[in-house]
């Protein structure tokens, strides 16, 4: 059977995969692609600006097509079709006959006929080549404008920000943003959120013309207003690529799109159309999941079985970083047909709306702006017509503190609930992968079912279903480290201690197998360090440390390192500031005040590190452990020594705390802060442990986190005297070190802890496990064993030797390291400059 596919985009590629899986005998598959790159992940196109490479985005390498006997012809578009002879002819002049022809030509950006759209500096946002052109234009751009406030337009606007364009505008013709997905109130919140990101929105605006000579200089609108700009990205919708179909006489829709029936057949019984070029039931689907389903239908039919395309749900979630937006089902339905509940928090920028049937039994649709965590679950409830809780409001208000209902949620899902809509994987498929194929990790499930390999949005739910199924089977859900160790971190901690093991190799010999890897080496090294607090770079352990620990500095773009001396509590004398200034000048380092109240010096050659530290240590500095999974900073506010509100001396206490726990190795980094009064200038409630002065002593908060999922710390104990407070912190930290999984911050550790903060309080304050004494003693040993590892390193010639770049030319620096100048200092040279395609 000769099959020719026109278009090697996401759907065309998926079709090839699906067709191969049907094992049709004598299959000859030819694919023509207009772009020069093999099909890539268009959905995650924007991540190209955030550091993903073409390789990262490529769905299958060219090798894959070869290995599977597919004749892939890139950069060679089909130009002519003769339906009588059943042949296609390509741009390069190749003519081939087909038994079946598949259109997977996708769509192009729709460019409205505005005068001036051909000017230099006007782009669309569809292909990697478009992105390369935008990238090359960005350095000369101060202001960027995006026409179109839909899903893609907002993504393009965010991309402009990522490219460093500070002033970005979005123009939307409709009176609100994302008019097809969200309502007026949702749009208002979204506009506010975008404003916080520095994106200005203009709704109800219609562009009259684009100004400028050859190059764009501005835009004029129908209301007479003008906006100057150096770059314009048009994202006003899509236009199906039906020109070839039209030319060979296939039926196309009045507003474009190749007309197909439920079998994906066009008006010619040997020609199918799938993906964004197809018009099904008067609908062009601008999403990838329905395209994949169309590919499945077509492949199944070519293999001789029956299958029909049922139409598809248009629920979507926007991938913008920093703003969550989602809509599902029918987001707008209202009036007599439905009841609506709205939750709105202008302060935090959250808007949620759900629509449900009048009898309160069925969820019909909704909109989420600002917090879309509930999206997956709501979508499932809506699609599967699941029973609603007595008070539907509970669906959109976060569960009570610490209690998560995710686990309970997946139990209630029916077996045929579609979990991964990109790949069409149901709950039953995932359960079967666990029970029948023995998958016990999300990766294994991905391999086995392909779930979560598309947009990835369903990954958390896949994990919940997996864990739940394993538990049902009575399987222990164990967090084993990797292929080399069959133990969890907590088990290993106890075993290493019991057996008194001090190096990675002895641990591997006694408890593991194989030669270790980049997962278990750092995890075991961290355990050894937490247990014994010995020199982290001692000979037999040095190469099992993460690179930052091995070189006692954070590696940066280009392979240089940063230097961060400890500045306890953020207090520093003018003399010490002078030393930092001198060292930075001498070794040509970029300096910056960090968010942790100290000074970071960037861009040090590896061979300069010992020299730099020698000078710093000479002046009384010590390592700041900015590179370790260890205590980082204890921030402080100025406190009662100067501040008119200060209740106690927060700086002195912060220094005491920082010096006590400096160098302490833990499952992840630990941060702390001390504030002198409830005004909380040191932000103690966002730290792993935070201390706030009260009239009577100190309040101790624990398990806060900044970072990508900020979480406030919870109050552990109140009005403590200084020594008791330290005692509780000893117990708290030691308990964390002993029981947390690798790379788990205290906040996540607490979230997973059964019993939550009450349990933790019982252990730490009321000694419910009877281990308080032991915890305090263990901590005291670690405190007593402290030494500045940089001091130890520079005093040991063996260790110093390891800081040379070339083993056979110790005096030479890495000649490939490059810097650019930037605002009077240096910066690392870019590592991901656009590469030219074609």
């Amino acid at each position: 059977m000769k099959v020719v596919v026109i278009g090697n985009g996401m759907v065309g590629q998926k079709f090839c995969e699906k067709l191969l899986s049907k094992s049709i005998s004598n299959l000859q598959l030819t694919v023509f692609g207009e772009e020069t790159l093999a099909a890539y992940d268009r959905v995650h196109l924007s991540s190209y600006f955030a550091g993903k490479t073409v390789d990262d985005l490529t769905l299958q390498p060219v090798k894959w097509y070869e290995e599977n006997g597919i004749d892939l012809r890139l950069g060679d578009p089909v130009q002519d079709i003769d339906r009588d002879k059943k042949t296609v002819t390509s741009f390069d002049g190749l003519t081939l006959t087909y038994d079946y022809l598949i259109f997977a030509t996708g769509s192009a950006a729709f460019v409205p006929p505005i005068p001036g759209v051909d000017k230099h500096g006007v782009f669309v946002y569809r292909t990697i080549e478009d992105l390369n052109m935008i990238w090359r234009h960005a350095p000369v751009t101060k202001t960027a404008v995006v026409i179109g406030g839909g899903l893609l337009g907002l993504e393009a606007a965010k991309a402009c920000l990522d490219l460093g364009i500070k002033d970005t505008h979005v123009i939307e013709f409709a009176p609100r943003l994302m008019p097809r997905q969200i309502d007026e109130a949702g749009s208002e919140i979204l506009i506010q959120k975008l404003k916080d990101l520095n994106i200005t929105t203009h709704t109800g605006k219609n562009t009259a013309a684009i100004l400028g000579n050859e190059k764009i200089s501005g835009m004029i609108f129908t209301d007479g207003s003008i906006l100057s700009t150096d770059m314009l990205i048009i994202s006003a919708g899509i236009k199906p690529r039906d020109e070839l179909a039209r030319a060979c006489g296939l039926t196309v829709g009045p507003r474009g799109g190749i007309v197909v029936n439920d079998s994906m057949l066009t008006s010619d019984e040997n020609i199918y159309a799938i993906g964004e070029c197809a018009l099904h039931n008067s609908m062009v689907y601008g999403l990838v999941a329905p395209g994949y389903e169309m590919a499945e239908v077509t492949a199944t039919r070519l293999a001789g079985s029956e299958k029909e395309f049922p139409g598809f749900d248009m629920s979507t979630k926007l991938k913008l970083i920093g703003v969550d937006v989602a809509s599902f089902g029918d987001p707008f339905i209202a009036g007599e047909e439905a009841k609506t509940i709205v939750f709105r928090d202008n302060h935090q920028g959250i808007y949620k709306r759900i629509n449900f049937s009048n009898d309160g039994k069925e969820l019909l649709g909704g909109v989420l702006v600002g917090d879309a965590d509930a999206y997956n679950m709501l979508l499932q409830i809506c699609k599967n017509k699941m029973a609603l809780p007595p008070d539907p409001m509970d669906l959109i208000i976060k569960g009570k503190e610490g209690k998560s209902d995710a686990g309970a949620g997946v139990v209630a899902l029916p077996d045929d609930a579609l979990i991964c809509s990109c790949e069409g994987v149901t709950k039953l498929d995932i359960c079967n992968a666990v029970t029948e194929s023995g998958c016990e990790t999300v990766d294994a499930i991905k391999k086995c079912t392909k779930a979560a390999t598309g947009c990835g949005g369903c990954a958390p739910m896949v994990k919940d279903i997996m864990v739940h199924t394993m538990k049902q089977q009575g399987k222990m859900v164990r967090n084993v480290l990797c292929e080399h160790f069959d133990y969890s971190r907590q088990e290993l901690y106890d075993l290493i201690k019991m057996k008194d093991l001090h190096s990675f190799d002895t641990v591997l010999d006694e408890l593991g197998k194989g030669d270790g890897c980049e997962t278990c080496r750092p995890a075991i090294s961290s355990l050894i360090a937490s247990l014994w607090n010995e020199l982290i770079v001692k000979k037999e352990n040095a190469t099992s440390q993460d690179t930052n620990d091995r070189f006692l500095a954070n590696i940066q773009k280009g392979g240089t390192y940063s230097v961060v001396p400890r500045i306890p509590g953020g207090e520093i004398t003018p003399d010490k500031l002078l030393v930092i200034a001198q060292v930075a000048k001498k070794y040509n380092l970029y300096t910056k005040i960090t968010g942790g109240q100290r000074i970071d010096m960037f861009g040090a050659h590896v061979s300069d590190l010992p020299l730099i530290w020698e000078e710093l240590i000479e002046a009384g500095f010590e390592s700041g452990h900015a590179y370790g999974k260890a205590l980082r900073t204890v921030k402080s506010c100025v406190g009662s020594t100067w501040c008119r509100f200060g209740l106690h001396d927060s700086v002195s206490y912060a220094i005491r705390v920082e010096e006590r726990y400096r160098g302490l190795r833990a499952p992840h980094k630990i941060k702390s802060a001390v504030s002198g009064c409830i005004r909380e200038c040191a932000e103690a409630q966002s730290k792993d442990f935070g201390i706030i002065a009260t009239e009577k002593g100190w309040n101790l908060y624990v398990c806060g986190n900044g970072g990508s999922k900020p979480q406030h710390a919870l109050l552990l104990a109140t009005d403590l005297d200084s020594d008791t407070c330290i005692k509780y912190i000893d117990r708290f930290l030691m308990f964390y070190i002993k029981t947390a999984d690798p790379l788990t911050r205290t906040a996540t550790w607490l979230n997973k802890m059964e019993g939550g903060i009450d349990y933790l309080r019982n252990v730490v304050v009321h000694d419910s496990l009877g281990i308080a004494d032991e915890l305090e003693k263990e901590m005291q040993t670690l405190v007593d064993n402290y030494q500045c590892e940089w001091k130890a390193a520079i005093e040991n010639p063996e260790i110093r030797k390891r800081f040379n770049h070339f083993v056979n030319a110790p005096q030479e620096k890495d000649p490939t390291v490059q810097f650019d100048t930037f605002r009077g200092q240096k910066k690392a040279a870019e590592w991901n400059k656009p590469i030219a395609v074609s």
Partner: protein
Amino acid sequence: MIYDNQQISLTKEHWFAACSVEDAVINGGVCVKHGNEQIALFYFTRRNEWYATQNLCPHKKQMALSRGMLGSKNEEPKVACPFHKKTFSLVTGQCLSGDECDIKTYPVKVENGTVFIKVDTKEP
């Protein structure tokens, strides 16, 4: 002796002395300079094996593999780049984490406490 002197003079290939065994790092790598080329030399002490690869990580073009971490996947020895932990087979140079490009490998031998690496051409 692993090689035969005659053969070497016939081909362009060439063994050069990289460093002494004591200079190598236990279960880790060092970077060797050969003209303008940077070669990562690994002493996988645990397996008592030596390997050499290009020092450049193809992912973001960083001169970093010599600072990478050694390990094994099933039985295959590998190195993980310190930047984003892409892993490469030390035997074949194949990238073991997805579609990233493969890396070049070089034969290594040890004689009388000196480590030799075999390269295509003599020092330029």
